[in-house]
């Protein structure tokens, strides 16, 4: 039976590439080295219901149709729309993302990724202050202080700590966890916090206050810090600042606790500034804990193809970018979008009610391997291959390292890339006909 080594796990932004997969009769029967999330993706796919056939909603019900009919219906929606939202494209390959962007350009659509409800503010932060980071192996080999701020890798990135951070060993970190100080800053004592040497419980929404206090401490302005900031005593803040200053190499990993809370991107902006200040004393970097396995890839591809990482509006034929105006939720909550194409993401599950209600009102095209809440409000549904298992392609890890995902088993399903190409062809046909 074929055993595939060093397979890439296409679930979260850790993009572990040391998975051993056993395939029997075109089924994955065994998987080694993966976490619970990866295991569920690789082995679960033989248990979960696939969308078996293209479908179109007729009289309120999704009914099976031939592929060509679904493509034509989808293309018609796109051609007849004045403001299409193309959304998702994060649990898929960079090759598919490139085609999605081309489709958006040719249809004058607006295209956005799941960063809209995840690390979008981190991009805005980088646009204010830059993003001082490193590849994950740099942390593994060098870091003696690791901070997890508003993130919970035990749940969201289960192998992160063993492969890249807290527990990993490297050239200058031979003692692994013993040689490292692990700090967790969060609003509640998460399972990650339980593993920390130091847990700092911050008042929800006060991240920028704490970041600013840390900066003042690091920059020698202790005097401006009051006795308590963000629910934390000045003494504790000064101690934390000393820990960071005296590190040989520190890394602040931050998650949605930072990006989604009050002050939004100004928190990430503050973290970048704190990192810059810390480098006056020691080496420090920061890395965002990205969720979808290729949300980083969307940002990369979109940036080189359009100049912008997300929330790109092609209405006028050239890319325009302004999250707050051109983000997926912006145009749904304001009820601007008159059609949507959604792939490799699930806004039905992950957008606020008001946005989902608007999606339910407009024609929605969904491309996905699995039924999910978005399917419930979709009008054209096109099943796709599972990228990273049934199709190969490029993905970018949370630290922007590109890795090629392997094809592990055969499939009859078309890839997102192929479906999108077919849509481009059909859209051109319809436009020429018109």
């Amino acid at each position, binding site marked *: 039976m074929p055993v595939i*080594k*060093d397979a*890439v796990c296409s679930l979260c932004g850790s993009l572990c*590439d*040391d998975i051993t997969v056993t395939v029997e009769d075109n089924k994955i029967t065994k998987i080694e080295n993966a976490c619970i999330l990866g295991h569920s993706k690789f082995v679960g796919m033989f248990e979960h219901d696939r969308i078996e056939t293209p479908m179109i909603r007729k009289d309120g019900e999704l009914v099976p149709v031939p592929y060509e009919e679904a493509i034509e219906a989808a293309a018609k929606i796109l051609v007849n729309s004045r403001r299409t939202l193309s959304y998702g494209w994060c649990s898929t390959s960079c090759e598919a993302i*490139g085609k999605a962007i*081309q489709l958006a*350009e*040719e249809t004058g659509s607006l295209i956005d990724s799941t960063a809209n409800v995840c690390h979008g503010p981190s*991009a805005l932060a*980088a*646009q204010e202050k*830059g*993003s*001082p*980071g*490193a*590849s*994950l*192996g*740099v942390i*593994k080999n*060098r870091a003696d202080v690791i901070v997890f701020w508003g993130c919970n890798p035990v749940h969201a990135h289960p192998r992160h700590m063993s*492969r*890249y951070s807290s527990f990993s060993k*490297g*050239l*200058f970190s031979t003692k692994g966890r013993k040689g490292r100080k692990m700090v967790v800053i969060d609003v509640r004592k998460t399972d990650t916090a339980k593993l920390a040497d130091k847990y700092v419980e911050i008042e929800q929404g006060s991240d920028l206050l704490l970041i600013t206090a840390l900066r003042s401490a690091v920059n020698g302005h202790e005097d401006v810090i009051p006795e308590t900031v963000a629910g934390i005593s000045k003494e504790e803040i000064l101690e934390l600042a000393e820990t960071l200053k005296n590190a*040989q*190499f520190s890394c602040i990993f931050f998650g949605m606790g930072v990006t989604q809370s009050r002050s939004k991107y100004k928190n990430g902006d503050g973290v970048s500034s704190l990192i*810059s200040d810390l*480098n*006056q004393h*020691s*080496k*420090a*970097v920061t890395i965002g804990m990205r969720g979808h396995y290729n949300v980083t890839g969307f*940002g*990369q591809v979109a*940036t*080189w*193809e*359009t*100049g*912008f*990482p997300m929330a790109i509006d*092609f209405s*006028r*034929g*050239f*890319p*325009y*970018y302004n999250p707050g105006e051109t983000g997926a939720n912006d145009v749904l909550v304001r009820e601007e979008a008159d059609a949507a194409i959604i792939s490799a993401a699930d806004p039905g599950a992950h957008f606020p009610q008001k946005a989902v209600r608007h999606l339910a009102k407009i024609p929605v095209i969904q491309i996905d391997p699995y039924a999910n809440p978005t399917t419930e409000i979709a009008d054209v549904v096109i099943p796709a291959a599972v990228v990273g298992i049934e199709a190969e392609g*490029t993905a*970018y890890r949370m630290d*922007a*390292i*590109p*890795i*090629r995902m392997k094809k592990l088993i055969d499939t009859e399903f078309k890839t997102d890339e192929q479906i999108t190409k077919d849509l481009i062809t059909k859209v051109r046909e319809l436009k020429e006909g018109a």
Partner: protein
Amino acid sequence: MRMSEILIKNANVCDPAQGINCETMDLCIRDGKIVESVSESAEVIDAAGRLTMAGGFDGHTHSAGKINVGRFMNPNDARRTLVPGLSGPEARTEKTRAQVGYNTPNTYAIGYRYAKLGYTTICEAAIPMLAARHTHEEFKEIPILDKMGLSLFGSNWQVMEYVRDKEPEKLAAYVAWGLKASRGYGVKIVNAGGGEAWGWGKNVSGLYDPVPNFDVTPAEILMGLAEANEKLQLPHSVHVHCNNLGKPGNYETTIETMKMFEKVKPTVDRQALHVTHVQFNAYAGTSWRDFETGAPMVADYLNGANHLTFDLGQVIFGPAVTMTADGPVEYANSRMLHEKWSNQDIELEDASGVVPLSYSPKSFINAVQWAIGIELALLVEDPWKIMFTTDSPNGGSFVNYPEAFTYLMSAKKREQVISGFGKMALDRMVLPGLDRELSFYELAIMTRSMQSKMYSRPEKGNLKVGSDADVAIYDIITSDIDPSVEHEKVKQAFSGAAYTLKDGNIVVKDGKIEATPMGRTYWVNAKVPADIDSAMNKDTDIKFKKYYTVSKSNYMVEDSYLPNPVEIRTEGAF
């Protein structure tokens, strides 16, 4: 679709590789190559006596990979329209994808705009090997141009260990493997050892300052890699970004580095060393207070040396984005200028940083930087040693090349700019005393001909029979124009070629994109004896097992990333 035959009539050819200096003749093209003659059915382009050169070749540009960080952190660059027709947002057309940007244009704009300038080949100056797929993914989306890239070796653990342990053969084997893994064309060394020091927030201070924990000096790294480069008989020499870049007084390190390479014997008919963006490395003085030009000293050395080439790194006034594997320099820039700062250290390999900035003629430092690039071009007598660059977009965007050409060709144009400088700036430069004006012939050498030799690409940068039919026709009648006076016309003509042909396809006509064929990617596959290769692989196996976070089997860039590859094989002299 490729026209099989083209006849370019009445071309005023300037092709220094053949010693042709603006002579009017016909050029024949068949199947993408320059040929002796074509049949009567050939498509005819009437050049009408206009200036005709081989396609331009930018041998040092940041156009794929790190530039994406620049785009990402500067969305404001996308809306800049500083150079009409070559910057800013442009809607898609039937022939072209949508475009944005100035210093950091999207990939499509890079292809179209270089082609409009008559350029047909670029060399990306820095591929971080672990992230090499990224560079090639961007290459795939840069239309028209032929591409190559230089892989970073200067702070690589395996390299430093082999240098320290005096294992030159294994070092050569590792370089060959790294080039293959990253599909690189040559060896780039950025601030040798400095990337590793930056891993601890430090830097190396010069050629003989040991790299922390590795017990090697930058000088040893440079010499070790040069030896490996020659052992592998690579088509390009080592490509060096010197230590101490951007620091007053660094011209001494630069000359010292150049001198050190006098003892390197090239195994291929080309230079032993290419020193890049020398403008940033030709600074005299001891601090920014007494900062002044070091160009005369560097030029003086270069005039007596015959073993090396260099490029300018010319500064353009206005916004720029600095991006380099020299991590500590970028951090220092950001603190000094209070600018945003991105950093990306790459495990076991190198560092990098990106910082936007703006060069102002009102700043005496920027004015002197501007002058240094031009001084180097004018003070160094032999243009075959000089490649014209702005180190795009470090000194400024490549779309300003036509503007910069006028600095070299017209003393009047220089006077115009210099008249805006303060006395302090004028006291720190020698440019006002230089009256040399470069000819079209000399410009052609610096923008295409010398690159052919420097990169051992005989089919590029010239119009010899058998060469690639990459041709640029500019709307200039050389006999009717005095570039010294009519510099505006020169700039206009170089800003939008009358024709650019790529492999015999008309890709630009009257400054507009006509076709967007996919270019090639050149990479080097250097042969290494099997026993040495296998010994080296045992060492790298350990690196991957213990220190990398990517499996060795997932490291190598797959064929699918190079849709149109050209593999250059070298035999090696082991």
